[in-house]
């Protein structure tokens, strides 16, 4: 659905550093919160040990479902593990998988889109029909099939989630390439006598992938949601690895025993997706403002 945000025109770049300060001053408090939350997550991703000292895997069969306390900030779960530590340690896989999948989508899509836009008509058409095929096939079904039949390890998750969304990017990049090829500045470069490969490399490529880059943060948000959804459906990370979606899936069976478990896992996922999306949207708006 995010291809609706696609921008048919090439976009100018990001604001210069010098302008940043004035941008910061007028910044929305909501965005600051989102930024702070993501910064926190970044720390949790790089060095979870700094934020949570307890072992996220250490069980304690005699302290199941302890409510939040000074010892266990977020309480303990169905295995007596420290939930705070699990939430913190779950940031890395979520963010990395989300980011990597978004990157895979963007890279594959951009390459195929460029190929479709630049290759001879017949080949381009074949590529586009393949894209149509992939697009008519609902992403969720694709992901479910790949994961159910190939297993829910990081590699298949990456392939499945990476593939989902590729048609959108291919279309976007191809449309951009086609438009760009008729753009006046490309013609100006042609009349300068620059060789085709140089024009593609220097002018077409960077401008064609710009909208993909702009939508990249939103796609990360989408992928994180997808990872969590899959875990929720029981197709995500293998236990006992801490994972927000899996925590939520298991914890909702224990609403009666520890309702906060559900709330915490839900909060972590929602907060992340919300922050990523809010910042992503802000980025898009800023880009448009500079058009």
């Amino acid at each position, binding site marked *: 659905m995010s291809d609706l945000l696609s921008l048919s025109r090439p976009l100018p770049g990001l604001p210069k550093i010098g302008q940043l300060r004035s941008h910061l001053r007028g910044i929305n408090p909501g965005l600051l919160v989102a930024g702070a939350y993501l910064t926190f997550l970044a720390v949790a991703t790089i060095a979870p040990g700094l934020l949570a000292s307890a072992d996220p895997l250490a069980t304690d069969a005699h302290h199941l479902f302890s409510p939040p306390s000074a010892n266990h900030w977020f309480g303990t779960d169905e295995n007596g593990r420290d939930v705070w530590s699990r939430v913190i340690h779950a940031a890395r896989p979520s963010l990395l998988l989300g980011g990597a999948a978004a990157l895979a989508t963007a890279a594959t899509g951009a390459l195929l889109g460029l190929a479709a836009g630049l290759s001879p008509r017949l080949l381009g058409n074949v590529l586009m029909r393949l894209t149509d*095929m992939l697009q008519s096939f609902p992403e969720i079904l694709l992901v479910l099939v790949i994961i159910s039949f190939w297993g829910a390890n990081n590699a298949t998750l990456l392939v499945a989630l990476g593939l989902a969304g590729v048609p959108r990017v291919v279309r976007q990049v191809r449309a951009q390439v086609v438009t760009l090829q008729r753009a006046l500045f490309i013609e100006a470069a042609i009349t300068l006598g620059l060789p085709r490969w140089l024009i593609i490399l220097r002018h077409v490529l960077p401008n064609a992938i710009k909208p993909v880059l702009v939508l990249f943060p939103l796609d990360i948000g989408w992928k994180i949601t997808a990872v969590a*959804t899959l875990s929720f459906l029981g197709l995500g990370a293998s236990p006992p690895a801490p994972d927000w979606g899996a925590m939520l899936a298991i914890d909702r069976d224990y609403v009666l025993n520890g309702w906060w478990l559900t709330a915490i896992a839900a909060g972590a996922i929602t907060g992340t*997706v919300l922050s990523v999306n809010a910042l992503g949207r802000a980025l898009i708006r800023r880009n448009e403002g500079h058009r």
Partner: protein
Amino acid sequence: MTRRLLGRLGAGLVVLWGTATLVFFVINLTPGDPAITILGGPDALPTPAVLRQVRAEYGFDQPLWGQYLHYLGRLLHGDFGVSYRLHQPVLKLIAGQFGATATLALWAMVLGSGLALLVALTTAKRARWLTELLTWAEVVLSSVPSFITGLLLLLAFSFSLHLFPSSSTHGWTSIILPTVTLALPVAGVLIQVLRRELEEILEQPFIITARTRGLSETGVRLGHALRHALIPTLTILGVMFTTLLSTAVVVETVFNRQGLGRMMSDATTNRDVPLVLGIALLVTSINILANIVIDFIYVVVDPRTERHE
């Protein structure tokens, strides 16, 4: 027009064939023992004769290409096979579940797009604080994963307040919470797109012209802007179809509803190959058809489309 329609349908058939092939091979190239799956999974205790019978009956003793051609041949006769796990014809199973999901999706579409149109039409290009608020509302609506929305609604309205039954089959009220869950992200995305579109449209010279003719604000929004806003809405609804299906998988799981979504996730986790293939083909064809229909609705809504073809 007819030629274009036939062309689109032809392309659709090719896409279907491709889908069938792709899914067939993705599924069949994975390791596994479908015979045991058919017999009920790990707790099956079949005799050797039964195992042989199953492998012969389903053609697992044939080479993959043979199985593929056989499968395509049966498809051409409209035979989608028999579910591995439910032991009933795939078409019958799908037919049994389709209605529930279609009803849910339809209501969600109606509710979601209705809400979005209402909100977008009344709030586009208004006070700054309202814009700010709605921008956040859009982000929230389209960010909160459906399974969380669903769980929250269930927890709040069903378990706690008892306003709605927690079980899926108890009366018409049981469709309300799932519909809302499904409609909220639809509304979130649509509001965002519609508002962007409307803000752009309301700046257009023809809107100024309409105002200078003495047309009221309501008249401008309903008489001119609405129709323009419908065009991107259509595009989204076309794309939305697959999104709705994905959400249906989750919503039907959370709310224990029967339906295509849940059958799909069950079928895949249970490796019910004929059912997975059947659903894949069905959903793909609906998707293709829906997009063709939407293309033709465009022509009705936007007279420019046809001429540009």
